[in-house]
């Protein structure tokens, strides 16, 4: 800690007045949770006469431990943004959607109009309501609401975000990258970061990177671009986009070839020794060999026989082919993996040609990984008990940590690439052990978590399960008897069997095309889907305006719930204005996206610190009110009256299962029970007293090997994280994928893909072992013509669409450029500042070019979400974001280039439905002189709705009080000497 000079304050005459510079008597300090982004740091807010004086990090908060990012520091300018919606808005009857003709209406009007509509939908076909939420982190509530309403058409942003990553993890490790785990910053010796610019754990990552660098651990960054985190990496591997799988599998190749893998880890904690049936062309091929009880089988080296693989006291063979009792040939899963990855196709030399990273480098990285894992092993002395009840006196750590995000996830081969990275972790024994990537509660969960997506809907009936879940085979798909998708987004269909977060990015297109069926109402909450979170933005805007022969909108009713004047708001029929994060009750729940740390679960609240300055309402309150109006069972008493006073009351009293509610802290009547216990009426108060968060620290003996740690498993069962205390066996080999594949091969009895396209895709991509394939869109693109990969990165100063309204942040970044490798650019005749067209097979956009060194030569990139529609977001129509900044989404198609005779296919990962934002290939050519200077496409400036001013503003001077200056005496002025010689 810095030595503070405060001691000098009293003695230093110059400093004496400093103590009185702040009107502390008019100030008040309160705690809440930041929501300038989804990292959800704890903040301490100093209020002064009802205005925000200062927002700082809460030093005690587990997420940020006192630090705050650029966005968090700019909260004031979000709170006082002039893009804030002021009142409910209705598109004026008789005006066109998108014309921006709105009228302010009362909440009563808005809610009765909406209730009527929703009641009708619910009474006929609840699926006609789709409710999709973007950057919110309160899916526990929205999901509950949707299932109570009875629609399966609910999803949150995961599908267009990083569901590849989440699903790969949950089907492989039982936890995942993204928000499901963290590198062990304190202990890791070697950190490999794949395709991550910011991630959700924004501040923890920055803190962590500093920590490992201070400790002298090695940090290797795999990324086509060197900015941000990659800037401080010890080694930068400028990979060609979409090829991480090839790199990971080449590393696996080296490790397997050299015998550098953690034999005991694989035997004990993974399904590597499980025997896999090898009967190509026959039912059951590729499934695990199981006994009558369904227990997987292994070959025991002691008994020299095939035995139940879940027992202790056996020595399972990791390699080998054997014959099952019924005569079927079997091989261990690891044998299959070795056969695959030792193939020339995964040699470093081959990978080098794919990834653009030299083979020698790949060999060296593999050797370094092995060296650190096996020669720099760390140990923590601590007694713990494994799942079989065996005591251990220490935790062994392989201090290799990996982390990956959208650089891997946002490609259509990202699921298998992420699986490959997880295999690499398993081979090194570096999963949830000291120094590795560690799961955060409620993870690890069973593989996959035992939740199946709801399929059946009926009028006026809640769903029997949640709309989202984790299929284990074709039987769990949400399809009809003909194999056609039942969900509007076609999630859990043959086109995306493991789309565990839904497929937001398809909803508008599907609804407008009536494929699989038209919608009545679409509610978008905290998602700007008319603009930056949609692909093919221009045609989406057209679709929102599209009408059928009767002159009715193809998407009849669009409700947008937002706090600001976004592009989507402009296309809404009904706009429900939300509060800001400083104005409402919120809860960051373990039932949702946890803010836990590897050493224990945590959750948090938001409390209103400021009065809203318009006729706005927290959406959560509105949801509860709608639920009551509609009579959704969980929200009303038998007599139809409201069960909960308001959202805060709901948070405290609602129980999902006995003793399990939205908040885990201070449960039980007397508040003494962490995680599980009766509702505690004082709970909310306890959170406030504790700085708005709750953290339960696990005993050290439960912090590692959680997948096989008896005490942890029993505890996690008891508090409801897992339905049993069974150990979690990691899936090197993924049997669910094989089940889909068998169906596609016609080798199973259950549902089968309805057509050749689906059949072919399932057969190819649902491979139970990772494999590398060229991203789908790229494979269908003429790469000689479209020579560049085009990707985006998160700017550290902006959150998606919503920070361009921020008067401070936009001073840092108001215009984005297209960045290109300098020598590549120069060779092509480009210079800094050129205006260029970026063209893909789907569209084109005009941008200003910048050359730089730190970009892989086949890649162009830009900051995500910068481009704006002129007139939106309270910005002057001439704002840089609208005139010179650009949105790459214009060139990203939501459909794959069509092949003859094929049905339209979403531009997504074929397994998880993850939007393939980063697959697009482009060509870049100079714009003509008269095109230079502005972006295209461009639209006429939006008309701001009532209450929003986007006219010129010359100066902004924010302060909570008149500054008290430090003045010098005349004497001092006259007598003080000069400093220079």
């Amino acid at each position, binding site marked *: 800690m810095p030595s503070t000079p405060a001691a000098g304050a009293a003695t230093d005459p110059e400093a004496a007045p400093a103590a009185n510079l702040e009107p502390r008597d008019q100030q008040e300090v309160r705690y809440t949770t930041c929501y300038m982004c989804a990292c959800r740091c704890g903040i301490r807010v100093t209020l002064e006469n009802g205005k925000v004086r200062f927002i700082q990090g809460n030093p005690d908060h587990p997420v940020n431990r006192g630090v705050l990012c650029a966005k968090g520091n700019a909260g004031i300018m979000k709170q006082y943004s002039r893009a804030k919606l002021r009142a409910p808005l209705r598109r004026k009857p008789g005006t066109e959607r998108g014309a921006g003709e709105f009228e302010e209406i009362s909440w009563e009007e808005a809610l009765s109009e909406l209730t009527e509509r929703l009641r009708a939908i619910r009474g006929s076909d609840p699926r006609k309501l789709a409710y999709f939420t973007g950057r919110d982190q309160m899916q526990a509530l929205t999901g509950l609401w949707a299932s109570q309403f009875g629609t399966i058409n609910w999803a949150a942003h995961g599908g267009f975000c990083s569901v590849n990553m989440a699903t790969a993890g949950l089907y492989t490790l039982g936890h995942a990258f993204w928000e499901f785990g963290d590198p062990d910053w304190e202990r890791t010796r070697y950190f490999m970061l794949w395709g991550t610019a910011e991630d959700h754990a924004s501040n923890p990552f920055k803190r962590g990177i500093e920590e490992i660098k201070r400790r002298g651990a090695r940090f290797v960054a795999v990324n086509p671009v060197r900015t941000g985190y990659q800037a401080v990496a010890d080694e930068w591997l400028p990979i060609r986009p979409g090829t991480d799988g090839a790199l990971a599998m080449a590393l696996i190749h080296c490790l397997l070839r050299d015998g550098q893998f953690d034999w005991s880890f694989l035997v004990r904690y993974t399904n590597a020794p499980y025997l896999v049936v090898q009967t190509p062309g026959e039912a059951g091929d590729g499934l695990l060999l199981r006994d009558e009880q369904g227990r997987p089988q292994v070959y025991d080296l002691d008994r020299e026989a095939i035995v139940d693989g879940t027992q202790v006291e056996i020595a399972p063979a990791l390699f080998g082919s054997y014959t099952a009792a019924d005569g079927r040939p079997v091989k261990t899963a690891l044998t299959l993996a070795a056969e695959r990855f030792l193939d020339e196709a995964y040699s470093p030399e081959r990978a080098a040609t794919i990834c653009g990273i030299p083979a020698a480098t790949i060999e060296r990285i593999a050797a370094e990984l092995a060296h650190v894992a096996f020669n720099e092993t760390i140990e923590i002395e601590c007694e713990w008990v494994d799942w079989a009840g065996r005591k251990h006196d220490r935790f062994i750590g392989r201090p290799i940590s990996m982390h990956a995000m959208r650089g891997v996830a946002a490609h259509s081969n990202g699921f298998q690439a992420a699986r490959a990275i997880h295999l690499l972790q398993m081979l090194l024994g570096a999963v949830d052990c000291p120094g590795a990537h560690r799961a955060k509660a409620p993870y690890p969960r069973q593989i996959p978590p035992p939740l199946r997506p709801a399929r059946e809907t009926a009028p006026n009936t809640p769903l029997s399960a949640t709309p989202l879940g984790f299929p284990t085979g074709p039987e769990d798909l949400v399809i009809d008897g003909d194999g056609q998708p039942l969900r509007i987004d076609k999630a859990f269909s043959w086109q995306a069997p493991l789309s565990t977060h839904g497929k937001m990015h398809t909803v508008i297109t599907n609804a407008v095309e009536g494929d699989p069926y038209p919608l009545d109402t679409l509610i978008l909450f905290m998602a700007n889907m008319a603009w930056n979170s949609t692909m093919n933005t221009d045609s989406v805007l057209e679709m929102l305006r599209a009408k059928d022969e009767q002159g009715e909108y193809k998407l009849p009713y669009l409700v947008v719930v937002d706090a600001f004047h976004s592009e989507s708001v402009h296309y809404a029929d009904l706009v429900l204005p939300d509060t800001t994060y400083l104005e409402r009750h919120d809860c960051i729940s373990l039932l949702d996206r946890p803010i836990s740390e590897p050493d224990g679960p945590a959750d948090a609240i938001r409390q209103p610190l400021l009065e809203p300055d318009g006729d706005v309402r927290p959406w959560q309150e509105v949801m509860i009110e709608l639920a009551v109006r509609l009579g959704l069972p969980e929200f009303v008493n038998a007599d139809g009256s409201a069960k909960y006073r308001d959202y805060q009351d709901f948070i405290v009293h609602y129980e999902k299962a006995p003793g399990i509610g939205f908040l885990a802290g201070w449960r039980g009547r007397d508040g003494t029970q962490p995680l599980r216990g009766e509702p505690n009426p004082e709970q909310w108060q306890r959170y406030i007293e504790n700085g708005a968060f709750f953290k339960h620290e696990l005993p050290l003996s439960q912090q590692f090997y959680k997948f096989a740690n008896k005490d942890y498993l029993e505890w996690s069962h008891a508090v409801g994280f897992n339905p049993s205390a069974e150990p979690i066996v990691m899936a090197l080999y993924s049997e669910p994928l094989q089940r889909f594949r068998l169906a596609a091969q016609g080798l199973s009895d259950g549902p089968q893909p309805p057509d050749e396209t689906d059949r072919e895709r399932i057969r190819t991509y649902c491979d139970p072992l990772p494999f590398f394939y060229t991203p789908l869109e790229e494979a269908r693109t003429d790469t000689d013509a479209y020579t560049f990969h085009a990707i985006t990165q998160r700017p550290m100063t902006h959150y998606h669409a919503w920070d361009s309204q921020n008067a401070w942040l936009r001073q840092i970044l108001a215009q984005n450029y297209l960045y290109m490798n300098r020598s590549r650019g120069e060779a092509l005749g480009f210079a800094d500042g050129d205006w260029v067209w970026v063209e893909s097979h789907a569209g084109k956009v005009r941008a200003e070019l910048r050359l730089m060194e730190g970009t892989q030569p086949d890649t162009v990139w830009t900051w995500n979400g910068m481009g704006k529609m002129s007139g939106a977001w309270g910005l002057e129509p001439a704002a840089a974001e609208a005139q010179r900044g650009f949105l790459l989404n214009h060139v990203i198609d939501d459909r794959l280039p069509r092949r003859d005779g094929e049905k339209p296919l979403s531009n997504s990962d074929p397994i998880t439905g993850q939007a393939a934002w980063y697959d697009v290939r482009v060509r870049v050519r100079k714009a003509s002189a008269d095109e230079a200077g502005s972006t295209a496409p461009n639209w006429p400036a939006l008309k701001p709705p009532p209450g929003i001013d986007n006219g010129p503003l010359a100066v902004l001077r924010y302060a909570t009080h008149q500054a008290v200056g430090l003045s010098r005496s005349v004497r001092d002025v006259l007598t003080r000497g000069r*400093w220079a010689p």
Partner: protein
Amino acid sequence: MHAPLSVILFTVLSGAGFGFVALFVLADLFAIGGPVERGELLVAALLGLLIITAGLLLSTGHLTKPRDGWRALARVRSSWLSREAVCAGLFFPVAALYLLPYLMGGVEHTAWTAFWALLTALLAVATVVTTGMIYGCVRAVHDWQQSLTPVNFVLIGLGSGAVLLTVVRAGAGADPAPIAALGATLLAVAAASKAAWFSWRHRPAGSTPATATGLTQGVVRLHDSGHSGPTFLDHELQSDQIAKRHPAVAYYRWLVVGAGLALPALLLAAVAAGAGTLWAVLALALVGGGAVLERWLFFAEARHTIRLYY
């Protein structure tokens, strides 16, 4: 750097005004080209003071609080700007004391009047020196950090003052030749000195992207300045961009040295050799234009170290 017209005109006018006054005082004291009559003196004094005052008033033009300009007197101990203000401030009462006997009718020089006369001349030159030093002491602008900077300010001030004085003397019926000769010499030296200044400007600057960042492992390039819109400093200090927008900037330098200084020197030499006063008037126009151009270049071409950060 930013080249505000007010600052350009201020330095040109006050330089010329002070130069004119200094030389005039000498002409008066030593009757160079003949004694100075009361009428001529009053006209000259009025002219000189007018030019100087106009210049000084312009100099407050770029202050945000011109009415607080007096505060600038406070830091003579360290600030050349303060020193300039003090010199200029002292100049007026001293000049008044010098002029007082004339206004009251007397024209005979005594030791007393000579003292005030010399002091007036001295303060005039000193003010121009301080103006030069305002810029000459800025370490952040390598181009300016030459001992020739204040020398140039003084030479150009005196030179242009001399041209004006030549015209005034001739107008008053005195012999313009000696002043013209002096002026020709001053301008010739100024031309040489400015030429030297221009070439010294190209001496390698010590500050580079490497010293600005401490990065020494390879070519260092600014990738992003971290702000999208312009800043105050962009406007104030980054305007070597201005010079870049004028492709003919290299010629302007020749123009300054040749047409702005050397040619008037020749013209004055001709006047000294007996050519008509009209040539002095032409010289005056040339030197005026030259000085403005010189000053514009002085600012517009100046490269501030912040370009390494912006």
